[in-house]
């Protein structure tokens, strides 16, 4: 018997009112693999991640982590599920009322109830791993630049050594050099932890750097997936249009909101 994939989505659907955002997403992610999901804005990328995390509840289909269903968990099972994940949010989503080091070690302090001193040591270690010095630790998130906030958020995502890490548009809003620094950090951190990673982005440079495998989502479905190098070889017209950023092609941008 083969081991089940780390993350398995089968026919996942989710609607908001009349708008169907996920329209039967099916995707497997193997353990230790880094999968990048590309797709335009509003194609359901974030909704997909939030469904796996259990922040949103899908209307239909199955989501399995390590072969176990994880839709609609509560209580202890939900806690165990949450413990496996780390997530880097698009805007960082740092807690502005807490200094940087408490942000980084939040999970250790509040959920695992680790003593403050140990948690701070780990926080400093993780901050160093993302290239931030110890004097940043006492600052508040509002005092940091966008790139630094992203790095702190990355440190927070990896602080509790999660098995699975999600990255929601990790390079959006950064200059190309800082974006590349973040990409390198993501690759390094994921490799060091041996974690399974899922990244959603529309930044192709980032996707090419981070991914083992790339999947494209369009209108709530995975329309193409394959190893990183195949993305430039495929004749899929949707993928071709997207990676070359052309306005003309099979993907019609919805200029007006449906």
């Amino acid at each position, binding site marked *: 018997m083969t081991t089940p994939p780390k993350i398995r989505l089968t026919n996942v659907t989710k609607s908001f009112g009349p708008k169907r955002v996920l329209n039967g997403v099916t995707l497997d992610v193997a353990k230790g693999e880094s999968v990048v999901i590309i797709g335009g804005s509003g194609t359901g990328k974030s909704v997909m991640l*939030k469904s796996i*995390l*259990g*922040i949103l509840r899908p209307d239909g289909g199955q989501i399995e982590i390590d072969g176990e269903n994880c839709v609609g968990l509560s209580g202890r099972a939900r*806690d165990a599920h*949450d*413990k496996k*994940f*780390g*997530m880097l*949010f*698009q*805007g960082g*989503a*740092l*807690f*502005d009322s807490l200094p940087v080091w408490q942000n980084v070690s*939040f*999970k250790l302090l*509040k*959920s695992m109830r680790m003593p403050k001193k140990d948690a701070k040591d780990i926080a400093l270690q993780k901050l160093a791993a993302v290239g931030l010095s110890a004097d940043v630790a006492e600052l508040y998130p509002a005092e940091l630049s966008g790139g630094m906030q992203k790095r702190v958020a990355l440190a*927070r995502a990896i602080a*509790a050594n999660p098995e699975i890490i*999600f990255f929601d548009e990790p390079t959006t809003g950064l200059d190309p050099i800082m974006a590349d620094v973040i990409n390198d950090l993501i690759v390094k951190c994921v490799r060091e932890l041996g974690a399974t990673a899922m990244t959603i982005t529309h930044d192709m440079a980032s996707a090419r750097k981070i991914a083992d495998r790339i999947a494209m989502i369009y209108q709530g479905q995975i329309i193409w997936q394959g190893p990183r190098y195949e993305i430039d070889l495929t004749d899929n017209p949707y993928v071709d249009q997207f990676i070359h950023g052309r306005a003309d092609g099979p993907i019609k941008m919805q200029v007006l909101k449906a």
Partner: protein
Amino acid sequence: MPQVFVILGSMVKLTNPLALIGRTFLHFLAMAGQFAIFMGKAVGHVFRPPFYFGQIGQQCLTIGYYSLPVIAMTALFAGMVLALQSYTGFSRFNAESAIANVVALSITRELGPVLAGLMVAGRIGASIAAELGTMRVTEQIDALTTLSTNPMKYLVVPRLLAGTLTMPLLVLVADVIGIMGGYVVSTVSFGFNAANYLHQTWDFLEPIDIISGLVKAAVFGFIVTLMGCYCGYHSKGGAAGVGNATTSAVVLSSIVILIANYILTGMFFSK
């Protein structure tokens, strides 16, 4: 042909006043249901670990302690104006001696808790809604979940507890200061005998006057913090959404306070 009916139907829907009333009513019911579920969840989490004592302490400080100046000023002037009004009114039929009683009763039973509740609704309800609303739209609430922390327990429960526990204390302070306001005006402006005034206040007040006020205060504290949390927690759509959440939190909690005040007064004093 069927398309014509669809169009006609939607025109009727738009212009028909009954449809409008129905829609508003259904919307109201949906919101009331969502609110009831939120309240049930929040109260349920109050009694289940983990407890975030640090958060509870911090919220008691912001909600209780930092509200003291506002509450004190409100109570002081409420007491003073009560004495002033009663004096000008009562002197028409030589009933000035009742001023002490009127001030003490009105402050402890009604004005203390209600004015404190309304001031706290403006001060705390708004800030809770704005804070949680911003945390919602910047995904900080989602981030809490991914950090294995239940946002209900970490954000909502401490505020609810702090509001419900500190409001009675605030109102107790307001009672004292309000009565003092009336005392100062009566003795300084109207030349009442200080000892007599205090005696009259003390003899006339019954425990139920104060207790009913404190129970009201706890209920109002619960209402304000719950409304603030509910509106903030469910806000969406960026800055405008947070603004709406803040407005609804203050307006809704003020209205509910006034309604609850009537009901509670009925429960305590109608025979």
